[in-house]
């Protein structure tokens, strides 16, 4: 049969960021997909050559506008590990709280984009309305809605008072109750089910074979979550990773729906368990220049992120590398696209929750 090549992207209604897949089709079936990225490659890793390690954290935050807090946190944790800096307990709890708020924000953003892509404008607006509230919380606590810059090597820059934390929790729980209604639409609406159920199935074997991470892997039945290793205070939180077994587009949506509620519960536990009081230490400043290297892993909303930092005793790091979850999930995406119908390609690409800015740095 005659083959046709269709370029998917870099501009496409479902893609908020540019990526190209050259889809090779036989009739309506995709036979092969060849990715091209690089449209927003900014060379941020290279900037360690001229930006001092103390300032690099603010650059790292700008890798992506959705996971910005967690990028900053990952960078600071890496440097703290190299420089043997003990982070005060309250600062560690605050980081966990901001990280989980980021997860809620990211999932709401994605659920909105997802809804828009499969034709539910109204659902998109509801998700983004709720996300605005999360951004308000960020603005109130960090001063920034997208770029927060509260992470410092050795701790955090700002405290959130206990009364403010209680108010934030109440606000999140109210939001959680509202979100349940929205989640019901995602879970039960027949046209959504029809559009997503059974589409783009990634079996557990395939997910393992392509080293998928995050919600992508969890939707295929793999119990994988970097938070399980118990670092960054997660050892004091009771939670069980959300796992679905269907592996299709709907399962990936459901994992994220359930993770929103789970993150709000994690924030509740954190606020319960963190040490209370005003004026507690938040930062232990590092001394001198770092020497050594480290790999750091965190669970971002899209899955495991991995940072490599190598320092040679000067003000500039020798190497900084971020391997983001989307980078790890692109092989899974290509695997899913191959063999699918052309009409299902947008849904498949979207349900991996691609963050191209992260991927390209």
């Amino acid at each position, binding site marked *: 049969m005659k083959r046709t090549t269709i370029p998917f992207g870099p501009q496409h209604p479902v893609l908020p960021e540019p990526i190209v897949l050259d889809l090779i089709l036989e009739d309506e079936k995709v036979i092969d997909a*060849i*990715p*091209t*990225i*690089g*449209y927003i*490659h900014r*060379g941020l890793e*290279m900037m360690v*050559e*001229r930006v001092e390690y103390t300032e690099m954290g603010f650059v790292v935050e700008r890798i992506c506008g959705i996971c910005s807090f967690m990028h900053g946190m990952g960078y600071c944790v890496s440097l703290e590990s190299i420089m043997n800096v003990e982070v005060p307990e309250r600062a560690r709890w605050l980081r966990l709280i901001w990280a989980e708020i980021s997860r809620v924000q990211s999932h709401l953003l994605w659920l909105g984009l997802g809804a828009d892509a499969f034709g539910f404008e109204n659902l998109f607006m509801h998700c983004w309305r709720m996300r605005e509230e999360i951004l308000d919380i960020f603005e109130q606590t960090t001063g920034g809605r997208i770029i927060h810059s509260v992470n410092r090597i050795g701790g955090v820059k700002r405290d959130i008072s206990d009364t403010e934390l209680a108010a934030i929790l109440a606000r999140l729980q109210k939001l959680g109750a509202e979100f349940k209604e929205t989640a019901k639409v995602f879970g039960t609406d027949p046209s959504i089910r029809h559009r997503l159920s059974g589409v783009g199935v990634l079996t557990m074997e395939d997910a*393992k*074979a*392509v*080293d998928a991470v995050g919600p992508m892997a969890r939707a295929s039945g793999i119990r994988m979550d*970097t938070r*399980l*290793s118990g670092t960054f205070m997660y050892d004091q939180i009771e939670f069980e990773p959300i796992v679905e077994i269907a592996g299709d587009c709907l399962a990936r949506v459901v994992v994220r729906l359930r993770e929103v509620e789970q993150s709000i519960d994690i924030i509740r536990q954190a606020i319960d368990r963190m040490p209370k009081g005003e004026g507690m230490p938040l930062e232990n400043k590092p001394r001198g220049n770092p*020497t*050594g*290297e480290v*790999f750091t*892993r965190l669970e971002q909303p899209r899955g*495991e992120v*991995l940072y*490599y930092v*190598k320092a*040679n005793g000067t003000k500039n790091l*020798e*190497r900084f*590398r971020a*391997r983001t979850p989307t*980078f*790890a999930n*692109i*092989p*899974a995406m*290509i*695997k899913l696209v191959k063999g699918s119908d052309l009409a299902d390609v947008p849904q498949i690409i979207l349900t991996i929750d691609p963050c191209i800015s992260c991927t*390209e740095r």
Partner: protein
Amino acid sequence: MDGETFLAKVRDYHEAGWRLAIINVTTIVAAAAPAHGAHGVAAVPTAAPAPDAAPAAETPNLFEIAWGFVKDGTLETIREQIHAGDTVPSISEFFGAAFLYENEIRELFGINVTGIGVDLRGQLYKTATKVPFSHAAIKDRLAKNAAAAPAKHS
């Protein structure tokens, strides 16, 4: 250790259920920079001269490559230092996701990787400098940065 031994080690990780988490390259530019803190299993992927052979009079152009594998929250690396111009075998045969990392290190570092599962033929990134992390490119930038040092850049 040759390429076959390296691939055998990768196969062992694959068969024991490890997941490929990263392939990371560091360009070693600083004079006489030893691989401090290196842990994990060492491997020379090709028949290239052993990196820990007697140091040459002038610093050779070296890259350090780390293949990182994760299982149950543990990360282990296979590390090796190679000379610029050496060839590294692809591990796509065992880890299908390796192709993206391998295309990346070829484009950004100029390291030849043989047998990549999906060869993107230099289409992955669009960079202003052809091989931005080659020794020559980094040295060039460092020299420019040093020259511009008194004026604080943004």
